[in-house]
């Protein structure tokens, strides 16, 4: 028996080994290296002077840095909330809708997943074209239906830009949540649903008492995926409002902040590699804490439901 376990261990190690090497070389070491750079200061791509925690202290005490950092943090939270609302809540109802069997439900399923297959940059570009104040179709449509008074420069107004960007991202990844939820709903035993229906349950009862409890672990997974995706989001900002998070940093997220501060020259908003690495480390810490929090929350929920 002991022999067998030993053999088993060796076998398992063989499986883990290639992935372990790849993760170490391409993930773990760069992350550690980047954290190391956050303790250094200096010109160029490889900062040379060790400054201890000075970069972190400066990030949180000097207004020129912390105003950008907290600005991006706040935007990121708003961004996350909007995306979560659309993808989680609307996505859930969409999934409930398309898992009912009706004519065309299969087609709806495929259709809802279609945007997810596009590149983020393509999505950003399409939205930018649609919303262009001069030749964009969206304003023209609003005008045609007599809502011309509501038109604003969507991506040029700090009040609307972040919301628009969030909608673009949600639109793209909406299908992913629908896919997760619908597969969860599909796995519910049909006999339970049937029994409920015989007992006179309407759709709301079904959702609240059967569907929701059984897909709750999926809510957790989807929320965590959205959280990670949003707090590291860069592509859509790059495509739609540029790395400065225009207008006036109102769409600046952690991703664009890091990119700008680490890789741009000072005159274009760079803070030097050391400070850039500091921002990256703070991003990493934020995401780790966030994911930990969500995991704890959803595990507790699951336990409560289990009781």
């Amino acid at each position, binding site marked *: 028996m002991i022999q067998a376990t030993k053999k088993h261990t060796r076998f398992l190690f063989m499986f883990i080994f290639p992935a372990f090497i790849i993760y170490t070389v391409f993930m773990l070491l760069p992350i550690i290296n980047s954290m190391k750079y956050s303790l250094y200061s200096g010109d160029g791509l490889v900062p040379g002077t060790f400054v201890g925690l000075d970069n972190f202290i400066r990030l949180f005490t*000097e207004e*020129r840095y912390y105003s950008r950092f907290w600005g991006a943090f706040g935007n990121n939270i708003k961004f996350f909330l909007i995306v979560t609302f659309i993808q989680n809540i609307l996505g859930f109802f969409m999934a409930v809708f398309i898992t009912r069997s009706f004519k065309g439900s299969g087609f709806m399923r495929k259709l809802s997943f279609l945007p997810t297959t596009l590149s983020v940059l393509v999505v950003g570009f399409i939205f930018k074209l649609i919303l262009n104040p001069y030749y964009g179709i969206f304003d023209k449509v609003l005008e045609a239906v007599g809502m011309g008074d509501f038109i604003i*420069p969507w991506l*040029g107004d*700090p009040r609307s830009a972040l919301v628009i960007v969030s909608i673009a991202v949600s639109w793209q990844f909406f299908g992913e949540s629908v896919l997760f939820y619908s597969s969860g709903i599909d796995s519910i035993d049909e006999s339970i649903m049937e029994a409920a229906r015989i007992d006179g349950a309407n759709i709301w009862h079904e959702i609240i008492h059967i569907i929701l409890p059984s897909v709750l672990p999926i809510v957790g997974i989807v929320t965590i995926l959205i959280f990670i995706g949003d707090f590291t989001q860069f592509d859509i900002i790059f495509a739609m409002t540029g790395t400065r998070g225009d*207008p*006036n940093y109102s769409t600046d997220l952690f991703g664009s902040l890091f990119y700008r501060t680490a890789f741009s020259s000072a*005159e274009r908003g*760079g803070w030097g590699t050391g400070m850039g690495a500091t921002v990256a480390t703070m991003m990493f810490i934020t995401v780790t804490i966030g994911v930990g929090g969500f995991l704890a929350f959803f595990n507790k929920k699951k336990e409560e439901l289990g009781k």
Partner: protein
Amino acid sequence: MKKIALLMSVLVALTLLTGCQKKEESKTAEVKVEKVKLVFTSWRTEDIERMNRINDEFTKANPNIEIDFQPVKDTEYDAQLRQSLAAGVGADIIFLRSYDSGYQIYKTESLMDLNSVLPELKEFPSAAVAAWATPEGESYGIPAAGVVHGIYYRKSIFEKYGLDVPATWDEFIAACDTLKAGGETVFAQGTKDNWMLYEVMYSGLGANFYGGEEARQALMNKEARFTDDNFVLALEKMKELQAYFPERYEGIDYVTMQQIFGTGNAAMFMGGSWEIGIFEDLGGLEDVGYFAPPLAKAGDTLQYCFHVDAGIAMNKNTKHMEEVKTYMKWLASSDYAQLYMNELPGFFSYTPGNYTLNNQLAKEMQSYVSDSVPTVRTVWEKLSADSPSGNELVGEAIQMMYAGTLTPAEAAKFVDDGLSWYY
């Protein structure tokens, strides 16, 4: 287990095979061509065809050297350049931005010192050379291209209203009023991309109000502040133009504004000389005219923003040192300058020599130079070396001013506060 072994052997076989193939390929390459390919990078993706034509001329004279022009998108250029140089895969010949931005790259010790390689640099205008040289006077870039800022206009629209090219600000505003009253889109300008507001509008049109080069020097030498009356006055003048912007200008980005003007849908566009090529491609140049920034009052001397835009540096770690030097020599020659200015009208070479410009707009732009005081963008030198950079601050301040969140005086204070972090 058998299956794994099989898989492994297949994998090994595959690697061996590809390895052999590669070896064979390199063998044939050695025999066939001894041509050296030099990679030339720039932030001007729109120039690929034109630069290829210029470089073909070089290859004709030097058949063993081929130039591969590989530009990177403007906004990504600096980051990409830094990364590639640090990784040791940087281009051989490099477009370099002026002053601190280029100097930062030089300080990574990846650029070649040029004083001994190109002694002819001594003959270049010293102000231009200084934009790509260390404080000690060691050059690391050939001053290759300068640009001017001014106003493009549609000749047909101006004719329709019987307007002449305005020389002073009052005439300029009067022309704007006439055009607006006639229902024209006066300017194609939008404010979504704030760099335009600073680089072209404030540095170009504002210079006549804040006092041009003298004021810029004073600001840089800490004898003046951005909150001084002259700098605020220039901001106020910029604010005056807001009334003539198109609807929802806050959402109009750089590309859209070029398209609005280029397709004849606006009477004027405040732009840089580098846009000649873009307008040519968009709708032809027959109907496009140009005038320099209007003077504050008649009789003033024009403060002309003739900005040091691009230098050309060579990678210290190039694999083809001699070939790169040969090419650099050519880049610093008047032959290249003549080709360059005619292929890329709107870019003005600093290389000494007599040139004939074949582009009418470029000629017009150059015609203002002789009677003007040349200056560069307001806070480009020294005042953008740290965070937050002057370049960003002025752009942001004007963007907020146009959004109505700051008054011109507050905008000036915003810039001054930002600069006080390090200046």
